[in-house]
């Protein structure tokens, strides 16, 4: 593997966003993942989402841990700062980064090993804090970089390329996030760009912890018969709950969504997400309903995708603490130090 720089050639007629940038301007280095990797499709969806949201590249922070998924921030938005940290620690690094500067948009890309095994502790606590970030799990049930060991999301009965079938209960990121009070929970499939892009847009715009769990089959180590996270399996058992389309606050809501089947949710930044209910029973504002439905469909062997839960009423980390709106990193040091006379007053009680 080596670092390959990609020439940025934009076709003059390519669509431009409000910043005058084309989608090309949101690209990154050439992927070094295996050909056909689901993760590359997710990368493409992220590029589209950030492009469509008119995010200034340098105002985006790309965070990751270790694993195939965690390499991908190098493959999108070259003009953003990235922090490819250590295994399972993306959540804490993002927590600190956000604590210092709340005005950046944070996108974290993790994997099932990075989030549900080594980083499980940090994943759950970032949710509890309602850390304002888009947290993507590229979920393939397998450790790719170390060549095919099970991850904690591998389903019971999954066969590895070598060895015995998995007998341990999988950890489902979505149910975990539901039980911990995450405020935006979505699941999708790497091969379904139409669904994925708006879900990521919604997650990036959500003011709080937004999880997008993306089934992203591993073409090399987990795309064989017996794997429940193969392309074939996922497509067969794919079950769409809600299509979400993202509409920026300034634009009118299109009429593409029939009355009665659409539900609009206003996000904190004033933008809106429109949910189309495929299943008329489904209510994305009810945590308990989401949990029940998820378990039911899980037992039926189905993968529920779409925006499963959203709660835009809860405060994110800074607002829970009552912190100033300005980034702490930009407050001049002089204003943070009480000075010589105050020091004397402080020390009076120790005299």
């Amino acid at each position, binding site marked *: *593997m*080596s*670092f390959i720089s990609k020439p940025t050639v934009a076709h003059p007629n390519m669509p431009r966003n409000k910043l005058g940038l084309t989608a090309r301007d949101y690209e990154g280095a050439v992927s070094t993942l295996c050909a056909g990797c689901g993760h590359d499709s997710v990368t493409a969806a992220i590029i589209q989402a950030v492009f469509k949201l008119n995010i*200034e*590249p*340098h*105002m985006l*922070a790309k965070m990751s841990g270790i694993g195939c998924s965690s390499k991908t*921030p*190098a493959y999108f938005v*070259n003009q*953003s*700062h*990235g*922090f*490819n*940290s*250590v295994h399972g*620690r993306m*959540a*804490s*690094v*993002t*927590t*600190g*980064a*956000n*604590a*210092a*500067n709340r*005005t*950046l948009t944070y996108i974290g890309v993790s994997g099932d090993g990075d989030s549900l095994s080594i980083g499980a*502790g*940090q994943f*759950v*606590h970032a949710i509890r*804090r309602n850390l304002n970030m888009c947290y993507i799990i590229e979920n393939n049930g397998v450790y790719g970089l170390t060549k095919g060991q099970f991850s904690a999301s591998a389903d019971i009965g999954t066969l590895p390329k070598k060895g015995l079938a998995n007998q341990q209960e999988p950890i489902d990121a979505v149910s975990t996030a539901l039980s911990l009070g995450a405020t935006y929970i979505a699941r999708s499939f790497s091969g379904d760009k139409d669904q994925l892009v708006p879900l990521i847009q919604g997650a990036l715009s959500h003011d709080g912890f937004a999880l997008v769990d993306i089934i992203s089959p591993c073409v090399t180590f987990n795309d064989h018969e017996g794997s429940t996270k193969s392309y074939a399996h996922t497509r067969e058992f794919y079950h769409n709950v809600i299509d979400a389309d993202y509409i920026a606050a300034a634009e009118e809501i299109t009429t593409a969504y029939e009355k009665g089947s659409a539900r609009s949710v206003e996000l904190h930044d004033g933008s809106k997400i429109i949910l189309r209910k495929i299943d008329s029973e489904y209510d994305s504002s009810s945590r308990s309903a989401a949990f029940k439905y998820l378990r039911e469909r899980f037992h039926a062997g189905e993968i529920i995708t779409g925006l499963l839960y959203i709660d835009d009423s809860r405060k994110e980390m*800074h607002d829970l*603490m*009552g*912190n*100033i*709106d300005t*980034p*702490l*990193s930009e*407050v001049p*040091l002089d*204003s*943070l*130090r*009480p*000075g*010589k006379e*105050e*020091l004397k007053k*402080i*020390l009076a009680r*120790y*005299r």
Partner: protein
Amino acid sequence: MATVNDVVIKIATVNGTGSASANGLLMRSIFRMGVPVVGKNYFPSNIQGLPTWYEIRVTGNAYQARSDRVDIMVAMNAQTYARDLAEVSPGGWLLYDSTWPRSSLLDRDDVTVLGVPLSRMCNEHFEGARARILMKNIAYVGALAALLEIDLDTITKLLEETFASKQHLVGSNMEAIRLGYDYASENFVCPLPSKIAAADGAKGHIIIDGNTAAGLGCMYAGATVGAWYPITPSTSLMDAFRSFCSKYRVDPESGKRTYCIIQAEDELAAIGMVLGASWNGARSFTPTSGPGISLMSELLGYAYYAEIPAVVFNVQRTGPSTGMPTRTQQADILSCAYASHGDTKHVLLFPADPGECFTMAQASFDLAERLQTPVMVLSDLDIGMNDWMVPEFEFDESYVPDRGKVLTAQELEDMEAFYRYLDIDGDGIPYRSLPGIHPKGAFFTRGSGHTKYGSYTEDSDAYQDVVDRLLLKWETARSIVPEPEIQYSKFNKAAILSVGSCDGACKEALDRLNEQNISLNYCRVKAFPFSDAVKEFIEQHDVVYVVEQNRDAQLRTLLMLDCDANPTKLVSFLHYNGTPLNAGFVVKRALEEQSKGQAA
């Protein structure tokens, strides 16, 4: 022996009975009389019901270490009577609650036993179990006031200050003081031959613990993000930071905070948060103790290699493993110096007292940002949690914090291209850009192999180029870290070299040895890497007694590794039983070594 302002009082109680405030009152009263004091708390890893001791050394000479004597034992815990009696120095006194007389306390004929019926008196004068227990403690302070001639007006004034908002408590506390005072005056010859007299040795000083001082230092350094996981003995550092910030870091207009304290899920997360915040340009820190350093090690190595500032306070406790978490040691020197895998080493600062906790807290942020690397401040339980009398802290308003080489938006705009790890100035320190400042500053921070331009590499030469440049940065660190404290006595080829909280005991030992016509030179290291002055100091001497508080001579090892010091010159004085070092130990070891020298 009759003495003035040279007496050691040790109070044996049960933890959770409120004796801490009585002991504080006693110590502060003496201090307010202008007499230097040293306070040491020996407490169990427990909340209630186990034995605890508080030792107050009254030291007219203003020595900083604990003493190796006990002149007056206040034995308030029947569980420990036997050992408390045994600990009293010959010619000393033992004061106990004679409500229940104990003939076994009369076993030593070289100790005078003073029985004061504290419980009986308090039961007669106060209502309720809680008040009676609390007042019993205050009453022994009263008895000591009579025995030592502590000024009652000073005590009254202190109580008035303490209970400023609850004035009714001043009366009841003074009543308890009077009970003890009057009983002692009527029944014993007061004052004792060892007594206290007003002096001016405490002028310009304060009594403060190192964790409070470090928390205050962090606020004065302009730290905005603190992440931590509770661990004894570091916890009170963040408590102090929080308390200062709650007063001084609230925006008067919006009522919103200009600080962010996050209680992390563990130390793995605490250091991750610090790195994230520092990467984004905030001054960020975490306080911890040895086991926390173990958990932080992976990310500390990351920060070293990816060159991210971080400030870590390690308030060291007795290891290995859980060890004795409420006892002191300096046994994390090596684990901090080389925390993490691969070729990794870290800048360390070694405060010797709360005063240096305050100044080094500020220096640590400057160094971390200047050097773009973690800086660990190695305090210990003795400094961090004990009350020290130190000169009042100063803050120089002309001081300008060093934020290091951080490019502004304009500088980035004017640049042809930004490369994160290029050594433009030849000091091994590259320039960094903060997220959200300018698109040209965009950079992908990674712990994997990278070239000097910042891009991923598995190329041998490109990799080695960067790790070699980090060594150059290490040498820059050596030239800017705090210089050692060095004292030369008259010409001598032998010296003591120590670190951190060993300082007070070593300086006292130098005085005592001097009285025996043994003059030793002295060096106290304040930072790692060791500056050239440390190397030169060792080279100047034939023998250097390295005094430190661990079993494995970790400072000595570090001197050998970093200064290429000749091991045969470096003789270890190792104290590692968990109690703070005292001068007696250093003197004893020095005399042993000196007599060996003479024999040879």
